């Protein structure tokens, strides 16, 4: 059967509408009109009628967008995120098939939006499609359509900038350091005792620290054209905080290389699900297998940003290993027992976040804060910090920094 699909995609994309298995979608939740439009887009796609298919795919995405924005994100039925992925798939293929009107970067961006907002279908087809599109794009241009007008500066991240001013760490409040403890030792002395600790020499085998060292140039090469979510504004507790989507190239140009007045932080993003090539450069610490949870449930987040990014004092429900790949971070830690000294926000959404600005506390408003004992450290590249569940932590980057966090139960 001849398909209307571009030849390069025929290996990764199903060859006919039947192979999409749209009939497994819950039509009663999606509604007959929506399902009709989705099916129309699919039909025309395989007939090579890309313009018409694209029109319907756009209807699908716009309708889904409204569903995804109705009610709380976590309450949105997953079927809407699944069909958002289908819509993105059809749209990306149409854009690639209409390369007189669109370029490959547009198709890659469509895939990324599907990866960011959708839920995987057809064995994570968008990841496989975007890999093919990236290869196709590399064959022609390396950079996206919009070029950054400022020249690239210092694309190699220096190991330790000469002008780096490190905060003075109180020796009595230092987070202890340990060299690669055994699993048993880590479990007994740190996890079970809810004791933060810095583990050294456990990242030496990471390709990101070894033979494929992460640098701005390397990240641009692997992921420059990929669209990622960026947090803008000093901290998420402030009104001026917002999120934006941009390519990794744009993020590096605007927020890392340029001395931007605004802070941009690629924070708490499961980048390694989106870009499997980068996943190859890191290793899940063995310690994450300790505890009750499933290995498959380990959540890996990327934290990439310039000097001066701040994560306000907060706690998370799971165990956390924060691994420093590039750059250094100042971290302060408060135990759960002193929670009333860190004045958590009231209200459902921010109850895990402190109201206090750790490095500039308002002692009139928060008098007990200075009496609370704490631990602090400067986390260096190659080190990983263990943060127990519900342990308050505050993080500030001291230079350009790339951290990888592992959350497990």
């Amino acid at each position: 059967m001849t398909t209307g699909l571009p030849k390069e995609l025929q290996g990764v994309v199903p060859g006919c509408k039947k192979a999409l298995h749209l009939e497994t979608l819950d039509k009663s939740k999606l509604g007959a009109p929506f399902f009709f439009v989705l099916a129309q887009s699919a039909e025309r796609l395989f007939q090579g009628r890309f313009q018409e298919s694209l029109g319907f795919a756009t209807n699908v995405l716009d309708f889904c967008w409204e569903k995804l924005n109705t009610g709380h994100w976590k309450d949105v039925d997953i079927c809407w995120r699944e069909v958002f992925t289908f819509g993105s798939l059809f749209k990306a293929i149409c854009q690639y098939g209409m390369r007189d009107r669109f370029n490959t970067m547009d198709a890659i961006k469509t895939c990324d939006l599907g990866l960011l907002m959708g839920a995987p279908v057809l064995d994570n087809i968008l990841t496989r499609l975007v890999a093919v599109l990236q290869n196709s794009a590399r064959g022609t241009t390396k950079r996206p359509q919009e070029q950054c007008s400022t020249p690239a500066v210092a694309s190699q991240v220096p190991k330790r900038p000469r002008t780096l001013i490190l905060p003075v760490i109180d020796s009595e409040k230092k987070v202890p350091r340990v060299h690669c403890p055994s699993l048993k030792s880590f479990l007994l002395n740190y996890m079970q005792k809810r004791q933060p600790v810095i583990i050294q020499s456990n990242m030496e085998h990471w390709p990101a620290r070894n033979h494929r060292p992460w640098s701005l140039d390397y990240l641009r090469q692997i992921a420059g054209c990929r669209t990622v979510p960026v947090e803008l504004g000093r901290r998420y507790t402030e009104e001026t905080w917002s999120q934006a989507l941009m390519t990794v190239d744009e993020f590096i140009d605007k927020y890392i290389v340029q001395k931007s007045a605004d802070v941009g932080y690629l924070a708490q993003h499961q980048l390694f699900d989106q870009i499997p090539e980068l996943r190859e450069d890191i290793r899940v610490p063995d310690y994450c297998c300790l505890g009750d949870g499933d290995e498959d449930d380990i959540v890996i987040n990327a934290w990439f940003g310039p000097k001066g990014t701040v994560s306000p004092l907060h706690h998370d429900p799971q165990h956390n290993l924060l691994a420093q790949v590039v750059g250094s971070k100042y971290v302060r830690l408060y135990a759960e027992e002193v929670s009333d000294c860190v004045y958590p926000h009231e209200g459902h959404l921010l109850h895990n976040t402190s109201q206090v600005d750790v490095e500039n506390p308002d002692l009139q408003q928060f008098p007990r804060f200075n009496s609370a004992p704490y631990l602090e450290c400067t986390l260096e590249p190659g080190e990983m910090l263990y943060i127990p569940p519900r342990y308050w932590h505050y993080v500030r980057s001291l230079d350009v920094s790339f951290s990888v966090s592992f959350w497990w139960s």
Partner: protein
Amino acid sequence: MGKLYVFGYNGFGQLRPDRSDNFLVHPVELEATEPDGDGDALVAMVTASWSSAAIFAGKTVIMTQGFLNAESHQFRKFETAAVRSSVWTADGLVVVREGGECVQVDPCTGQQLGRWNGPDGAKFTDVVCGESTILALTDTGDVTMLGDVQSINPTPLPVHVGENVKAVCCGKEHSLALTVSGRVFSWGNGSRGQLGHGTTEACNTPQVIEALEGVTMVTIAAGGWHSVSVSACGDLYVWGWNEAGQLGLPTSKHKTGPSDGCTTCTDKEPSVSDMAQQGDNVAEVLVQATPTIVDLPTGQELSKISCGSRHTAALTKEGQLLTWGWGAYGQLGNGQTERCEVPCTVEFFKQRRVTDVWCGPWNVFVQVDK
């Protein structure tokens, strides 16, 4: 006598079943005739869902278009007992008859499929619908929530406003009520500021919008996540989500000035938010949690407002049509697909007198004097 024009999303042929265009960026005529084909009747109202439209030509003729009976680009026309209000719900077409009964009808034939009882035998006057909420208004000024018509005893649940209500409307997750005294109440989800209480908190029961106290409102409308009202003096008040400029407030930092604003408008004066001064840098507004006034080009007074998912349409007393907000499906009627964050007069109707306007989620129906 009137002429009906349509523009915006047409993916199911709900504007023009004879056209395969996914959307129409320019207004086109839609003939709404009486059964004996006696020229254009006055359209009493239009109600449109994402995939269909019901046009009430006169009060007894219903034309339905779009996705009907599991097929696209359908067209039906049938007679029915006089209707005073109607809305599409997830299940189908709900209609309030002149006699005060609220019934569900088959959108292809008009056959009655089910019926709700008014509380204590009261008559219904109006029915509106959100994502999953169906609200009805009675002639005693009470608001009720209609449940599933399939249930054995379909009795509406009362919604307590505490005052005589003269109009209700729904967005995707919120509801508004306008009282006889001109006060506005809101309830539901508030995450985009659409309740107008100054926060993004939800509100389970109707609360009066404090910021509007002291101003008498005469009409209200709700879009997906935004709310609009007009005062007795003709001022336009907006609150809620402004992500596509549907409030008529800036969506990006820019200077106000004579040459700024929507490039498709030829209106002389730009719209200026009451927060901004001429020549200042205007901060973008994404969520407006407290009602604010939006000035209109050439200071016109509004007679009617209607909202789609992410756009707004307004009718002036002089018979001009203004649109603003999301425009990707041509729902602003200006031949473009760009969004517009400033209320703009629709060129097409400048030489005509517009008498009514109704918005579907992604389109607009306009009636003009013949």
